[in-house]
């Protein structure tokens, strides 16, 4: 502890002021690409050593493309390769365990601490291998096959002669075993890491239907799907994305239903992605969607396995990413975005009612403030006299023009919403309610806005929350402001102009080759579940726009019991006695 100066010393120090030498500030030096000072550079798993920067147009960067093509038969070279690839000794998570089999053959295991089940590694790999005796095996390249087939007590073991695969396996939580003299690694499935349990969906809550949502674990998500959709043709193809984070995503589809061109196109787009890190489905979605500049989403995101299963049974594909509790469904149409997972579990008249309410909510959320401005500014003659009088009375003390009132309240509403989302749990909810009440009340009392406007903004907000798709609701929030400006400038004429331009733009959009406004435009075969949902037993065909391999979903008479006589039956009107 620093010794405290006495008063006199401190006084003299003040008198003889001396500027303290300042410590140097840190700055990030520029990297000279040609001088080799680039530091670690992009990860080169094959042990290329130096950084390998590729310029624009030099093709896709790939971890697998660089480095050694075959595994060396010398253990020292392999140890060197693993050490260099994982930046040892700086990288403390990589465990390389060297040992000698039967006192004569050197070997090592490599894995990442925290990603593997250590107990499994010790009991099922290390112990059996170390219990081998000298007469049990023959040295040479075949020794690794002998160990895989006869020694390791783990169900999932794969032989890999590609060094990049070994690196990727270790990164994915596998344990790589190498034995001197062999030209391959044994990659053992020893993954075990902390993950969230399957919980109730957080965004897509429903009253009726399953209450399970996806988690961040890819395998769990695919398993959830397989549990609902037990079909041998349900295929899950795994692809890696992200040059540096090299994360896995699964393309899940039913092979004998989906049009193969859709799968091919999805794989083509994912495989062509050349970015450093793809973290989460949101990033992947932006990288593969058709309409990158569009406000309206052209993909459906869901956190529900039941909805995903329904979609893939229709002939669509699901893309699920490791680390993301959402599945991306493609191709979709605008009508799919207005569906809720609950629709499928309700009787069709209820579902139709809900869909009409959602359409109304879309209309309110996008257009209500704009219509209010147009009517009160340009087309006052439309307002019935009684209503006009009450609007004027409420507004007579408000000094602002209607458009400014609307903008004030809209911006306040957006602020409350954003603050509510950022604040934790209950505090956020309370802030939302209290903020809206106090702000609205205070604004009316201060004559900043008219009470009618509070009703308009509240109805708009409710409409926005009732839109079942999060991305679509976001798009509507932005569109609302565009409509407000259009109506402030030109009234109904402006709103119609924007509406026509918007619908035209949406009509030109496609989602993985499917026109986004089908089945309305272009008109295709009548769908029994586009906007209006017909009874389940009438939904005989899959969506025409998907061109599925198997177009029929049900037999022409799916409820065969209606055509058969029950064992103990009677005809209506017959005398039971």
């Amino acid at each position, binding site marked *: 502890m620093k010794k405290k100066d006495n008063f006199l010393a401190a006084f003299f120090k003040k008198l003889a002021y001396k500027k303290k030498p300042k410590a140097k500030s840190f700055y990030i030096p520029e990297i000279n690409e040609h001088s080799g000072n680039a530091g670690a550079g992009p990860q080169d798993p094959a042990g290329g050593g130096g950084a390998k920067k590729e310029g624009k147009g030099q093709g896709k960067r790939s971890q697998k493309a660089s480095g050694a093509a075959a595994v060396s038969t010398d253990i020292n070279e392999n140890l060197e390769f693993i050490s260099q690839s994982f930046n040892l000794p700086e990288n403390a998570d990589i465990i390389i365990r060297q040992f000698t089999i039967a006192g004569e053959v050197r070997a090592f295991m490599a894995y990442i601490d925290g990603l593997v089940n250590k107990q499994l590694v010790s009991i099922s790999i290390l112990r059996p291998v170390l219990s081998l005796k000298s007469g049990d095996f023959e040295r040479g390249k075949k020794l690794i096959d002998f160990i895989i087939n006869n020694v390791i007590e783990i169900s999932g073991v794969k032989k890999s002669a590609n060094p990049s695969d070994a690196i990727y396996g270790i990164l994915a939580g596998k344990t790589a075993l190498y034995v001197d003299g062999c030209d391959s690694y044994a990659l053992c499935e020893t993954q075990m890491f902390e993950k969230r349990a399957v919980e109730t969906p957080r965004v897509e809550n429903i009253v009726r239907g399953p209450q399970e949502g996806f988690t961040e674990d890819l395998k769990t998500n695919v398993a959830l799907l397989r549990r609902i959709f037990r079909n041998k043709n349900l295929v899950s193809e795994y692809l890696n994305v992200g040059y540096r984070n090299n994360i896995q995503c699964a393309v899940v589809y039913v092979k004998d239903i989906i049009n193969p061109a859709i799968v091919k196109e999805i794989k083509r787009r994912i495989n062509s992605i050349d970015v450093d890190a793809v973290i989460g489905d949101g990033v992947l979605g932006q990288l593969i969607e058709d309409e990158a500049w569009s406000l309206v989403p052209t993909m459906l995101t869901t956190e529900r396995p039941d909805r995903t299963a329904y979609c893939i049974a229709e002939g669509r594909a699901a893309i699920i990413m490791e680390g993301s509790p959402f599945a991306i469904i493609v191709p979709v149409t605008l009508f799919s975005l207005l569906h809720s997972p609950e629709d499928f579990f309700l009787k069709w008249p209820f579902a139709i009612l809900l869909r009409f309410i959602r359409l109304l909510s879309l209309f309110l959320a996008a257009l209500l403030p704009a219509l209010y401005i147009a009517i009160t500014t340009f087309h006052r003659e439309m307002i019935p006299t009684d209503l006009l009088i009450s609007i004027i009375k409420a507004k007579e003390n408000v000094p602002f023009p209607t458009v400014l009132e609307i903008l004030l309240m809209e911006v306040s509403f957006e602020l409350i919403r954003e603050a509510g989302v950022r604040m934790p749990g209950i505090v956020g909810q309370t802030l939302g309610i209290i903020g809206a009440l106090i702000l609205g009340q205070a604004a009316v009392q201060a004559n900043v806005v008219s009470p009618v406007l509070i009703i308009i903004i509240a109805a708009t907000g409710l409409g926005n929350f009732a839109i079942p798709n999060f991305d679509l609701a976001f798009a509507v929030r932005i569109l609302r402001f565009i409509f407000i400006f259009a109506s402030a400038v030109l009234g*109904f*004429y402006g709103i119609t102009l924007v509406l026509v331009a918007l619908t035209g733009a949406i009509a030109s959009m496609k989602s993985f080759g499917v026109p986004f406004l089908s089945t*309305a435009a*272009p008109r295709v075969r009548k769908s029994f579940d586009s906007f209006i949902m017909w009874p389940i037993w009438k939904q005989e065909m899959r969506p025409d726009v998907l061109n599925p391999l198997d177009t029929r979903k049900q037999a022409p008479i799916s409820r065969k019991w209606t055509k058969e006589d029950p064992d103990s039956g009677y005809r209506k009107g017959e005398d039971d006695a």
Partner: protein
Amino acid sequence: MSRIRFGKYETICLLVNLISTQTFLGFPRTMVEIAGTAGWILVIYVYVLTLILFLFISKLYSHFEGKDLLDIAEIAGGGVARVVVGSIIVAYLVFAVSIILREFSENMKVISYDASPVSYISLFFLSGMVISAYIGLEALMRYSGIAVPIIVTGLIAIFIGVSPFIDLENLMPILGNGLYDIFVKGVLRVSTFSPLIILYLFNPFIGSNRNFRQAGVYGISIAFVLMLLCTSIYLSVYPYPFSLQSFLPVHTMARTISLGRFFQRLESVFMFIWVTNALIYLSSGFFLINYVFKKTFNLVYYKPLIIPFAIIILSISLLPDNLMSVLKLVNDYFRSYVWITTFPIPILVLIAARYRVRGKKGVKAR
């Protein structure tokens, strides 16, 4: 372009929209001006004439499946014929789009924006046209497929809303201004169906000749029903002298609607269908101008033409002094001569091409 395909439904919708645009403008009044209280008979007469002419043209077209009028002109008279026919069509379309742009803008000014200059209103219509042309034909057709049923429903709602005021006495005398005015003077009103020209140009996108014929027949017939309803209801709601005065008959009808004490003065709602109809007309016409010009002069792209044509159209539309000049131009010149591009020219081109093809076949056979 060749990969673009649209269905019969979309084509019918577009055709109905293009033809029925006049309903929103002064069509019923024009019919009354020509035939008096027999304006509705004139509509039937013009429809029958148009149908006969169209069926004749579609018969001639059956030999040229998948070819548009410019391709056929090229068969008939080589590149020169293509350029001549293409230039006539472009000139017609530029004139039509400019005049309709001005007419809609003027009417808009009368209805709601009396303080705004016409150029300001036109500019927004023009921006809609430009955006649509950039988005492309497929989107335009799809949009028509969605919007036209709404427009038709809106129109029918206006007809139903005004139906309590119908008085059949207003239709008397039944033959109006007389047979001569209806059947001789009225012949030129086949121009009403002049937007049929789009069918001759969209033939490659429509598919088979059967689709072409059906789209034409259905399109003409649906538009006819709307126009007949509009004219006859307009005539029967208002007395003859009054029906000669209204600039915008449908708007006048919309103003008349009164559903109880609360729902009155609903004509502003009518603006939604009105502007949508106008934008589809103007956008498709504008797209066609660019497309036909591109094809006539064998250009690779049409998009660089969009802005220059937009400026030309806006400039032409602002040439007439006022609404009266526009109406005079439309009634005295445009509606009197525009039928020439829709019926005689295509018939001549098709007959010439047919003879040319036959001649070539004869030479080959020999």
